[in-house]
């Protein structure tokens, strides 16, 4: 995991049509989804993407606290994204960083369009994402996990939200970046309502040639469609197994 590699070696591997971890350019890391693993929560999901592991819990709809932020027309959505101190190579301080505050906001805004918040005026829906292990793509894994936890909690949704980070490495477009790629290339996290073809999260912070943007987005959408199928499958399996046990 903590494999170090020089830029030259990295480029050489890309030129051979492969990626540092042996994947093809548009190949996702193995995804493992478990639902309903926190008994005291209305919804919960453990979402693993390669070495990245995120646990997400949904509580509510519940009373809005503090009451003055209640909205008479819709529920308030509160999202907190946090990382375990041991989730990274170097210990992360438990105090929320500026990055965690920003990610809580963008994750909230990525989930909000999917939820029928107007069904629960004056209430609050809470989403807590905890990164257990970080190996790139923690915000996208958090969104995938949160959306499934919301569905499992029985909160009415327009669609699931599905998210992936695409990378742009020396002219190549790669899907679902790993941590080495995250360090050496541009990564573009995207979240969508797949059934509506609408984007709910989009960020970037590296040089991206303008004439490749459309290709980058369409590559991301193909990957999102694959993850969306896995999300739906996990939900179905969860409901089938929970009805089988009776009650």
């Amino acid at each position: 995991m903590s494999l170090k590699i020089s830029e030259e070696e990295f480029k050489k591997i890309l030129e051979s049509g492969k990626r540092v971890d042996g994947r093809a350019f548009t190949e996702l890391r193995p995804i493992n989804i478990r639902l309903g693993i926190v008994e005291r929560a209305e919804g919960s999901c453990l979402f693993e993407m390669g070495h990245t592991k995120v646990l997400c819990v949904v509580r509510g709809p519940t009373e809005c606290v503090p009451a003055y932020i209640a909205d008479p027309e819709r529920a308030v959505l509160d999202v907190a994204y946090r990382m375990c101190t041991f989730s990274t190579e170097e210990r992360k301080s438990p105090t929320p960083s500026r990055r965690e505050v920003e990610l809580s906001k963008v994750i909230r805004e990525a989930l909000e369009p999917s939820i029928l918040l107007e069904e629960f005026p004056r209430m609050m829906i809470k989403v807590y994402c905890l990164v257990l292990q970080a190996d790139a793509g923690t915000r996208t894994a958090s969104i995938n996990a949160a959306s499934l936890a919301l569905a499992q909690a029985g909160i009415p949704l327009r669609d699931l939200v599905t998210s992936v980070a695409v990378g742009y490495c020396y002219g190549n477009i790669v899907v679902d970046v790993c941590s080495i790629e995250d360090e050496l290339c541009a990564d573009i996290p995207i979240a969508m309502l797949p059934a509506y073809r609408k984007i709910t999260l989009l960020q970037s912070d590296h040089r991206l040639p303008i004439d490749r943007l459309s290709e980058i987005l369409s590559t991301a959408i193909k990957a999102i469609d694959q993850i969306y199928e896995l999300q739906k499958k996990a939900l179905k399996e969860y409901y089938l197994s929970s009805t089988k046990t009776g009650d």
Partner: protein
Amino acid sequence: MASEFLSSIHREFLSNIEKESIFSHISRGKRLDGRDLLEMRKLELIPNCIEKAEGSCIAKLGKTSVLAGIKISVGPPYPDTPNQGAFVVNMETMPIASPSFELGPPNEIGIEYARVVDRSIRSSNFIKLEDLVVEPEKYVYVMFIDIYPINDHGNLVDAAFYATLGALLTTRIPKVEIGDKGPVILKNETKPLSLNIELMPIQLTYAKILDKIVLDPTHQEELVSGYKLTLAISKNDLVATQKSGAGVLDIDDFLAAVRDLKERSNLIKDLVLKQTLG
């Protein structure tokens, strides 16, 4: 209990009559202040307004105004970039600029905007960080870029960006000598900050209102918008993207906004350089 950052923000309201009047103008391709949908407010930069700062600038975007100042110190480099200077962008959100801000540490919006401005500047390689080294692997210049909104009449994030750009363009780096007790800053001997002017980023923010995209939203427009999209380009590359707000974005709107920014960037670049370097 809600996360501290959600509860630190007052919810602002717009009367239905104001909302409807914005909508009816926008659906006819006009805006309340008379602008066209893709028209920016007047950008005005007032550099060197704080003598004690190594760089400073007020940026006005219509009635929105923001002050940015830069202080420089010397310290050890980050372990992963031993031969590069460092900079940090921070934005305070005092109740001076808006009734929705409260005293206390920067709120969610302040943190987001500071990080967006940081990414626009950093990923463009506008600042020649390799020139900000005092003694390789030991001492580098550290620039603290602090942004104070003065009046929030909408699109603070772009005003903050241009204030930062103006401050960087006029920053003077003091000379540093390494004495027995470590580095000594010589405030009287300064030189301009070394910048890659040809890579200067240009940032603009678009907002989705109804089914239309407007450039440089006002405060009222922000309250009724679905999302805001902040983009920065440098030469022919997109260097920063941030979708902010809970609306949904169409791919075509994103690509159209990038094209619009590309078309405008040279004009804005000339304006910024003229108002700062003369």
